[in-house]
């Protein structure tokens, strides 16, 4: 009996680590969708870019892991802001079809560039010394890397919550989500709010991509293959629902891990059916008002 308990605890833990990565990947998308109503299916491109930058910095320039991740996150965040100012902004009022085509085009171009620069295979990532090995966290002994993911994810979710609920900027974001025109007339520079949020969203994606590189390998198919997973998190939580995104990401990570362990053949089929059943009951996800 205690073996089963150990197994479930273990699966829950691994699921949580996976869920944390998904949360980082999804939360930026949820905010930009809730804020700008901009459907950006190319969100995975920023995660992939973060992963590639980290790996390149480490292997070609000898930069240590954390520094490489931070550098990648900053670079992708800035690039995201530039993209928003130049291209994305022009599509906020455009029909959803054009936004989708834009993101598909962006994905195609990025995938082509990635394949050209790095080849089609997954990038091996050499985790630093202090992340290899195992750690005793009370309820069990797990790979240090996974513990690190859970820890960073938890910290970031608190930071994001604090950022949205406790800072002036966060208040501006909430105001702009609620009622853009009112926010503008109160003097909030909504355009800058959009740009910064977009940049933060892409930076978080890059963080998820870099930190999660050992879990979700970095290769040119990344934006396509993992798209559906962070879309699931955003859709089930409800667009713009940041707190919900954490809960859904963790739930998804755990359920997916458990299903894959006990029913490896039916894995993907079952998880999609579960998601469809959930959305059948709650088409707008668990967020009260905001629509995708």
């Amino acid at each position: 009996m205690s073996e089963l308990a150990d197994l479930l605890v273990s699966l829950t833990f691994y699921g949580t680590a996976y869920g944390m990565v998904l949360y980082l990947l999804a939360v930026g998308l949820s905010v930009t969708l809730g804020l700008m109503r901009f459907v950006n299916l190319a969100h995975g491109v920023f995660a992939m870019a973060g992963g590639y930058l980290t790996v390149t910095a480490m292997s070609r320039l000898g930069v240590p892991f954390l520094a490489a991740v931070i550098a990648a996150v900053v670079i992708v965040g800035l690039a995201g802001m530039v993209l928003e100012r130049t291209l994305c902004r022009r599509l906020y009022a455009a029909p959803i079809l054009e936004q989708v085509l834009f993101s598909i085009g962006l994905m195609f171009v990025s995938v082509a560039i990635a394949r050209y620069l790095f080849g089609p295979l997954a990038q091996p990532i050499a985790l630093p010394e202090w992340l290899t090995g195992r750690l005793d966290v009370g309820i069990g002994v797990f790979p240090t890397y996974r513990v690190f993911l859970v820890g960073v994810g938890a910290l970031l979710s608190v930071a994001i919550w604090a950022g949205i609920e406790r800072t002036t900027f966060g208040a501006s974001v909430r105001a702009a989500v609620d009622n853009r025109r009112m926010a503008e007339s109160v003097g909030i520079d909504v355009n800058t709010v959009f740009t910064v949020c977009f940049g933060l969203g892409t930076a978080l994606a890059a963080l998820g991509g870099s930190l999660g590189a050992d879990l979700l390998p970095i290769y040119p198919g990344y934006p396509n293959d993992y798209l559906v997973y962070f879309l699931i998190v955003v859709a089930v939580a409800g667009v713009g629902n940041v707190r919900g995104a954490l809960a859904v990401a963790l739930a998804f990570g755990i359920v997916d891990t458990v299903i894959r362990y006990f029913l490896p053949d039916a894995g993907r089929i079952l998880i999609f059916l579960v998601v469809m059943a959930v959305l059948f009951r709650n088409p707008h996800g668990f967020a009260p008002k905001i629509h995708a």
Partner: protein
Amino acid sequence: MTSPRVLDGLVIAGLAVLPFVAPGYLDLGTRIVILILCAMSLDLLVGYCGLVTLGHAAFFGVGAYAAGIFALRASAEPLAGLLAGGAAAAIAGVLSGAVLLRSRRLTLIMLSLATVLLLQEIANKLGWLTGGADGLQGIAIGPVAGLFAFDLFGRVSYVYAATVLALAFLVFRSLVDSPFGHSLVGIRENEGRMRAIGTPVDARLGTAFVIAAAMAGVAGALQAQVAEFVALNALSVEFSSEILIMLILGGAGRRYGAFLGVPLYVVMQDYLAREDPANWYLWIGLLLLGIVFLAPGGLVAWIGAVTRRVRASRA
């Protein structure tokens, strides 16, 4: 503005005339015809209902597999196989529509992706039925209606596929010109207002969804019969994206978008596959970005704008 009647007639005439004008290109022609049928069915959803979906390959694939399995296990007669493919896809449309159509925008897109991936997984796992990753092979198709056997030159294939497309086009234009079609456009333009005038929005969209699914299923069935093979990637997100791109190249919601976009895409793909195969995604990506910012209505809109300008300068 040239009346749709005349243009519709030209489309059908064009289909009929091809074997005489370009007899060496019948295989290519058949392939284009099948893809036009698929893209036209997607137009009903994307162009007229305003529902952006990346899951249309699901219906094409279900139709293809259904027709292939039907030929292998029931009857090699192609018309019966078309019916099987269309019916199977329609059922898939009813089931997936029940889930998908309760949402819009991102959630709808995500569910459409999940549908294709789900079906791809099922097809992969049920190897004994579908051939798994190797695809469904060994399909032998009998003569159409017991009379017209497929020949080596692809003539019968082309006439068969083109006739199906022509009939489907007549159905499509009838739908689009009908009160039902007009109400779909209303739903696309302002769903809330449609509810406020008493439209049963869910039922209308559901009907359109099933019709589009059935049509895509027929296209898939044609593909299975003409190629006598079904590849697993008929059920792929990549193929869904391709059909969408073909459609918007021509222009969504503009009646002839599929007829212009598909040949253009296929010709471009053939050309680039020869000249610069490694960079296909790069060029297509740039093309998409170009369309979004420079020509959002696709070829049909562009031609319309040019003709208007020419007329204006002549007046």
